[in-house]
């Protein structure tokens, strides 16, 4: 795919290093202890001097995952300790944003530790603009993955600074696919994850309305008398527009299936078995399989439709083994 013209100078920036951002504070026991307190970290290596004295360090060290915190700007945004660079290592994101990609989401944080840091060490980091992807289309929207690599050093008075760790930080800088819809709130204030709704058109409406009535409606051609599914505007056999529907018995057998393990998408069951069901009437449709262990799924097994209503607003045809379906009626 051809790149945008405006991307050229950005791609030429790949590999660029941005100067030091220095920690406001030396690594110190008070900040470490408070961090441990909030996070619920109970390892005595960070807070119990006597214990730490017996370790290979001979003294207290900072929790490794605290590495980034030492060099954060703090209360005043973009305010860094004296001696820090004026250069903004996030320049590349601002440049992409100016081209109409306003949103950003962090994707990966990969910390690598060379060694643990001790109390009294003064840290700084430098940033390398490591990579920018091709333009990608994701569920969130369209944009670019940008990778930055931060290298953390300890200032050493005797010359060579000592690298203590590294952070690979990857963000997705994008145009949102949909205007941000505020999720419906629940009593607890947490957004309720609803089952996605089918797209309903004039051609398919009868099918979904049938589900609400507890009917499995299959499109039927009045000209050639054949059935077809999914519903379409025209008969796929004779191209007639004269279509109505017939009621299927809801009985069929498993023609094929897949068990979806990844990604785990709420509110779906996990793992999520999805079947291609061949109805008695001869057409196939796909649906979620319920009341069956994924290990017991077998091609040819007898299934029966079960209409289930989700979120009080949508009824879907699901399929269960015949015996299980029968039991649930009792």
């Amino acid at each position, binding site marked *: 795919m051809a790149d945008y013209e405006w991307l050229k100078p950005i791609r030429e920036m790949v590999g660029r290093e941005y100067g030091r951002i220095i920690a406001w504070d030396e690594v110190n026991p008070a900040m470490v202890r408070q961090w441990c307190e909030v*996070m*619920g970290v109970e*390892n005595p290596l960070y807070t119990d001097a006597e214990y730490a004295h017996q*370790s290979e360090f001979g003294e207290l060290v900072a929790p490794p995952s*605290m590495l*980034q915190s030492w060099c954060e700007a703090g209360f005043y945004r973009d305010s860094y300790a004296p001696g820090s660079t004026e250069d903004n290592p996030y320049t590349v994101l601002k440049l992409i944003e100016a081209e109409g990609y306003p949103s950003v989401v*962090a994707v990966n944080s990969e*910390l690598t530790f060379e060694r643990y840091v001790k109390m009294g060490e003064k840290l700084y980091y430098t940033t390398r603009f490591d990579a920018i992807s091709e333009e990608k289309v994701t569920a969130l929207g369209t944009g670019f993955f940008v990778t930055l690599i931060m290298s953390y050093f300890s200032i050493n008075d005797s010359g060579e600074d000592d690298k203590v760790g590294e952070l690979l930080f990857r963000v997705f800088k994008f145009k949102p696919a949909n205007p941000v819809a505020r999720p419906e709130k629940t009593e*607890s204030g947490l957004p309720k994850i609803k089952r996605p709704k089918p797209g309903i058109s004039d051609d398919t409406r009868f099918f979904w309305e049938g589900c609400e009535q507890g009917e499995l409606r299959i499109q039927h051609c009045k000209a050639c008398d054949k059935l077809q599914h999914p519903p379409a505007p025209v008969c796929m056999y004779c191209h007639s527009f004269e279509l109505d529907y017939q009621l299927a018995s809801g009985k069929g057998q498993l023609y094929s299936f897949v068990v979806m393990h990844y990604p785990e998408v709420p509110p779906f069951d996990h793992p999520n078995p999805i079947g291609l069901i061949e109805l008695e009437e001869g057409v196939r449709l796909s649906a979620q399989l319920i009341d069956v262990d994924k290990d017991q799924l077998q091609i040819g097994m007898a299934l029966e439709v079960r209409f289930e209503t989700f979120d009080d607003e949508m009824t879907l045809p699901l399929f269960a083994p015949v015996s299980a379906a029968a039991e649930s009626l009792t």
Partner: protein
Amino acid sequence: MTSMKTINFNDTNPGDKLPELEIPVTVALITGGAIATRDYFPGHHDKDAAQELGSPHVFMNILTTNALVQRFVEKWAGPQARFKDLKIKLGVPNYPGDTMKLMGEVTDKDEVSQTVTVALAGKNSMGTHVSGTVSLTLPV
């Protein structure tokens, strides 16, 4: 106090499960965690600001997630384990009122460096908040 015992490298095997850890996600943990990591981004402590951004409430910052992953792994591994890396992929947000359940499993062992790799995931009511791997050196 956490148990002071450290897992011995020779006692670990791929497939070993870490004890699950359920962490109640509270406003205090989110805001306290943000400040303890020196992250004053308003979405982590100011509900109005978070709602301006389209979130229902304040949301956990990455550095707190990192810390909770460290806590989860360290609680199992013990105080003599040494972290070599901590690599996470971020998913759905952690909002107050939810609970994050951390689960993990030993996936790899390197005899030469006495390093084990743990694959982990932290899930809340909305899905996977964090997934990733941690490598640790363990004593023999």
